[in-house]
């Protein structure tokens, strides 16, 4: 019997890429992509089923196709395209996960469930320890938005894992995923000509490259390799840390420091007229930052990311083109200044 993999959220960039990747996997016989809207990108010959995971019909899909591996990637912070607002996103995240897990629980074939979660379950608060491990309890639970969704989703996943101990459940908590074709709110933020920041705060950020995200999902969805264990909860992040000030300098985009109340207020105003999807918890993340430990990812899951945080960001910066103050030209200016000074300083010696 071969593997039949069901991937939710296949209409999104990352979901689409993952479907195409495992379609090429020799161990996988059949890949079924599921989403509520048809994808704009091709799925590399994988089947696509237009189904809404919020409806019980998903149980029939699971039963009819004999799925044994479910990769749940339809947990997102923003709506896809113009598909409704925050309410429908929350419903897809929470109700969708409930329905999907309910379907998995009833299906005798399912052996493995992989959940794409996020490090936002830890929240962002000044009173938190500097580095989160998988079992650090958050000091302040996220009060709303995507972060709260992920907390609730993980709660349902824990319940499912208790009720079906025979199913291998793997929760991957991703740091911010960036890459050449990332379409996350953070990628949008870094594409602004001037980056608004919170005055007096310089958050620490971690990134994961898209390629690494695909790879680790593949490891989690396959049978565990020798000496590794791929069920449990794992933080996924590239090595190292970048400060927001560093990212803006490396991008060559100047920052605009604003007072925290101004930022919160402006964020709410822009969101209510629908210009941006920038949520309060993202503002909190860009205020206090978040760093997770990845020892479990290396030692237990056996995954070693190809890109560090800095390399991921460099790759992303290259794909976005130069900003107003490209670092290369700043460096050239300094070099020229150094040249002038040494030419003037030379004769006096």
């Amino acid at each position: 019997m071969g593997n039949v993999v069901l991937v939710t959220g296949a209409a999104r960039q990352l979901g689409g890429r993952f479907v195409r990747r495992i379609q090429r996997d020799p161990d996988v016989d059949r890949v079924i992509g599921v989403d509520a809207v048809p994808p704009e990108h091709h799925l590399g010959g994988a089947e696509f089923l237009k189904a809404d995971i919020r409806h019980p019909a998903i149980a029939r899909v699971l039963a009819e196709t004999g799925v044994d591996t479910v990769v749940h990637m339809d947990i997102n912070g923003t709506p896809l395209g113009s598909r409704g607002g925050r309410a429908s996103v929350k419903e897809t995240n929470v109700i969708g996960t409930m329905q999907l897990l309910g379907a998995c629980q009833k299906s005798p074939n399912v052996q493995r469930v992989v959940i794409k979660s996020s490090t936002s379950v830890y929240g962002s608060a000044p009173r938190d320890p500097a580095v989160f491990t998988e079992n650090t309890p958050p000091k302040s639970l996220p009060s709303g938005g995507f972060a709260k969704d992920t907390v609730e989703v993980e709660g349902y996943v824990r319940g499912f894992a208790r009720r079906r101990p025979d199913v291998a459940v793997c929760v991957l908590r991703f740091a911010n995923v960036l890459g050449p074709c990332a379409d996350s709110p953070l990628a949008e933020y870094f594409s602004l000509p001037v980056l608004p920041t919170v005055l007096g705060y310089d958050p620490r950020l971690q990134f994961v490259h898209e390629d690494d995200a695909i790879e680790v999902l593949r490891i989690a969805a396959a049978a565990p390799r020798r000496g590794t264990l791929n069920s449990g909860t794992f933080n996924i992040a590239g090595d190292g840390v970048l400060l927001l000030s560093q990212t803006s300098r490396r991008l060559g985009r100047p920052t605009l420091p604003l007072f925290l109340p101004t930022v919160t207020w402006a964020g709410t105003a822009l969101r209510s007229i629908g210009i941006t999807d920038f949520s309060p918890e993202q503002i909190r993340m860009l205020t206090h930052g978040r760093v997770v430990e990845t020892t479990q990812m290396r030692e237990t899951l056996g995954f070693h990311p190809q890109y560090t945080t800095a390399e991921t960001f460099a790759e992303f910066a290259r794909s976005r083109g130069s900003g107003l103050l490209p670092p290369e030209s700043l460096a050239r200016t300094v070099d020229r200044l150094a040249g002038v000074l040494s030419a003037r300083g030379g004769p006096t010696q």
Partner: protein
Amino acid sequence: MADAKVIPFGEEPRARRKARRVGRGTALAPVPEARTVPEPAAPPQPTAGRTLDERIAGGLNFLRRRITGDYEVDDFGYDKELTDQVLMSLLRPIYEKYFRVEVKGLENIPSEGGALVVANHSGTLPLDGLMLQVAVHDNHPAERHLRLLAADLVFVLPVINELARKAGHTLACAEDAQRLLERGEIVGVMPEGFKGIGKPFADRYKLQRFGRGGFVSTALKAGVPIVPCSIVGAEEIYPMIGNAKTLARVLGLPYFPVTPTFPWLGPLGAVPLPTKWTIQFGEPIPTDGFPPEAADDPMLMFNLTDQVRETIQHTLYKLLVQRRSVFF
């Protein structure tokens, strides 16, 4: 009156310090050349005897790395380059000229591996922590960096939290302390916390309760020695004669100091008194002889906490007896 006396430091650091000062003096002699250099481009370099050109080149290199974001920070946000080149240079005049800090017993901080420096806390504003950091940074032969554990209030305040993280401080919690100690860092902690720093002037040099002694179990788990440290001089920089409790509660602060000068003279009242400081590091207390489950033994924890506390208190009394005057 502050610059009247030059107090000698320990032998080796003094020689190093002198060499640097001489080097700085000769290097800065041709002043007109230096004018074209932008302000942050010429941070004081730690090596002695560099020519002006080298210094300018070094400064421009630093500037170039900074404006292109080409530098590293660790997981805690510690920016070593910024700390070495800028933050320490800003604090050094206060350390050398204003408080004229005298450091003793620096050999008690190991040259490699982790250690937990436990110090008394005083002075209304945590200047003692910063001076302790400069003391270790400038004088330790192995150029070790002290990573301070700071109160959560530090990380709530804008600007302060940013600078604290970049200077290598982190939140005073067991997770962070243990992570740093296991990485082999020197961690500095002031277990008295707000009780120590915000105590009235009448209680000066009386050690307050050492929290719940969590620092001992952290050191024990990491198996690193505890280095007791006594700081004399910080108590008198802001003699706190009163505490506006209501105002403090309104502002969300643990205390609101009233000193003979502070709210009355406005910002001028916030200038600390130029006291003469002594920082003494005591004999390290080893913790690696205990079994791993010892960290869960409350009696042992209390005993060790008391031992550290007594050591610091006795050293404080000894230093106070030796002190000629508060200001000299």
